[in-house]
């Protein structure tokens, strides 16, 4: 069943009638994702995406009437924290927030409330999750995938697509690809996803895509060394980034020598992870590790 989402997922899209929400909902439906409801306050009773998805005023109503069990959020940054809390309060156990630019103090609050409620939050500022052949939730292009035995976790957006495309081109398929997002406060970390992929019987090998800043990759390396018995390949972006400058993601920053690409690469290598110099090397590293 891979991880997080699949053919059985009953997805609800918050902000489905917005430009982004509608565009990506259509792409998700085309991929085969089961979107059972949309939520836009004040548009309850309408139908979105060419009349294919019923719209509700509140998540509570949508859950009561459709049994939605996952939410994907496309509402603007000023309203996204409230949207996440609404999904959690309505009892949805998996919330995937695509929205970028959410203030850190808001995310702090949301993160801790959702964690206490036992809700799994992916993101924010993330491309989403795709279980190949099952469901695509978020904005990862559907056509770059190929079914196969490799799970992927990444902090990046288009860099993820680049790696997935390279794998698919080389005939190395995927189980589930998870973009955890690049913000300072995210609901799900590398370690959380590594744990899930490690436990997933369909996943035979794992790819980790990191970047400079923070120490998440170092901690993930430590976790790999201790717990993961499947082969892991990794790529870290930002070897040439000058210290002390932010490169887009608020998380991608190097302070005082910690969190450099080199420190991350070394930690991963020490943990037995195969580290690529370029995304294009990932398929070969996986083949070397025995992936068919």
């Amino acid at each position, binding site marked *: 069943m891979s991880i997080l989402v699949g053919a059985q997922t009953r997805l609800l899209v918050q902000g489905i009638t917005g430009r982004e929400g509608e565009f990506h909902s259509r792409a998700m439906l085309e991929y085969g994702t089961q979107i059972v409801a949309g939520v836009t306050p004040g548009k309850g009773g309408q139908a979105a995406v060419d009349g294919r998805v019923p719209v509700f005023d509140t998540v509570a109503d949508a859950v009561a009437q459709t049994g939605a069990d996952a939410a994907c959020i496309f509402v603007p940054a000023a309203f996204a924290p409230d949207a996440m809390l609404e999904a959690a309060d309505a009892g949805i156990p998996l919330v995937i927030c695509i929205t970028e630019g959410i203030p850190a103090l808001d995310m702090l609050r949301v993160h801790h409330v959702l964690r206490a409620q036992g809700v799994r939050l992916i993101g924010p500022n993330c491309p989403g999750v795709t279980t190949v052949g099952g469901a695509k939730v978020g904005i990862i292009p559907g056509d770059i995938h190929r079914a196969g035995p490799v799970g992927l976790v990444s902090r*990046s*957006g288009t860099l993820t697509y680049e790696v997935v495309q390279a794998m698919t081109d080389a005939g190395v398929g995927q189980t589930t690809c998870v973009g955890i997002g690049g913000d300072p406060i995210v609901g799900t970390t590398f370690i959380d996803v590594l744990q899930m992929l490690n436990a997933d019987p369909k996943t035979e090998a794992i790819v980790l*895509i990191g970047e400079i800043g*923070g120490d998440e990759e170092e901690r993930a390396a430590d976790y790999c060394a201790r717990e993961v018995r499947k082969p892991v390949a990794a790529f870290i972006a*930002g070897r040439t980034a000058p210290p002390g400058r932010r490169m*887009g993601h608020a998380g991608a920053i190097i302070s005082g020598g910690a969190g450099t690409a080199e420190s991350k690469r070394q930690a991963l290598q020490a943990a037995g992870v195969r580290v690529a110099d*370029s*995304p294009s090397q990932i398929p070969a590293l996986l083949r070397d590790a025995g992936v068919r």
Partner: protein
Amino acid sequence: MGDHPFCPQEGEVKLQEYRSKEILARYGVPVPDGETATNPHEAREAAGRIGGPVVVKAQVLVGGRGKAGGVKLAATPDEAAARAEEIIGLQIKGVTVRTVLVAPAARIAREYYLGLILDRGGQTGTIIASAEGGVEIEETAKTDPEAILRLPLHPLIGLQEHQVRRVAFFLGLPAELRKDFGATLRGLYAAFMESDADLAEINPLVMTDEGRLEALDAKIVLDDSALFRHPELESLRDLREEEPSEIAAREAGINFIKLDGSIGCMVNGAGLAMTTMDLVKLAGGEPANFLDIGGGAKADRVAAAFRIILDDPNVQAILINIFGGITRGDEVAHGIVEARASLGRQVPMVVRIVGTNATEAAEILRAANLITAESLDDAARKAVAAAGSQA
């Protein structure tokens, strides 16, 4: 606690000392009266109004201004004017001083460090305190970590009175100052939360010879993502210290950082942009910039990106790498071709467009005599080669 000289679109907004103090004063933090001056005359007048000895301080966002001669004492208004004359126009770490702060010279009995940061690892706000104030806290962290108290705040209920007491006892404050200290820490916390700051620090917080607490220097760094709800703070951003090209980029919605190499980069997505730079380096070249053009790149943004990249005379070639997941590749290709036609300066361009309608895109690019590439590694190699042939 890091020292980040640049504040691109997505990230942090650092405020000058006098602006940081303005905010703290609003929340009840005791800040010495002071006035800014942009010329010696204003400095003399300010010192006259303040009365007594003053300190004249360069207002720049880079660290180490003291060592660079940017902070000087003056006993009289005339001396203040003379010191301002010396400081204004000074170059500190490449930044020209345009403004000084004239403030009463405090007689310092003791110096403390008191800061609040958003701790990403701990996923909460954290109080940082040390009785060794007046030096960079990063320095103390290295030389004497025991001298620093790190006290995480509860993410949902925030600063508690027992934490205020704990910091006061840790700093060994005299009993009679504990009440004022409470007001100071609570004020710092309120300023941090209500401004959506990433960092708010007072360094040094001093006890004067007269036994009063004063925030002698202060720094606030704001969370850029939260500026939309603080229009009153947006105006405090100090544009003059940023690269003009970076200001232009921010206004165009582009995330740009100028570097020293010769290969301009235009990429969608920050991670992919860094990867592109890495591969340029791996191919033997040097990137001239980091540039993330953002999602759904439109023709006008492509044009702005070209202008910003070519504004740098060092740029000898441009590498464009677009993963057209959402955007249609052929549309991006058209945008590039059009924008290129109107450019003043022409350099070789290597364009790689992957994803939706990549084949159509490749045809458009070839028709326009742009160099295309099979893979990202290939694109980087071709860009390096093209730049080399220009130099």
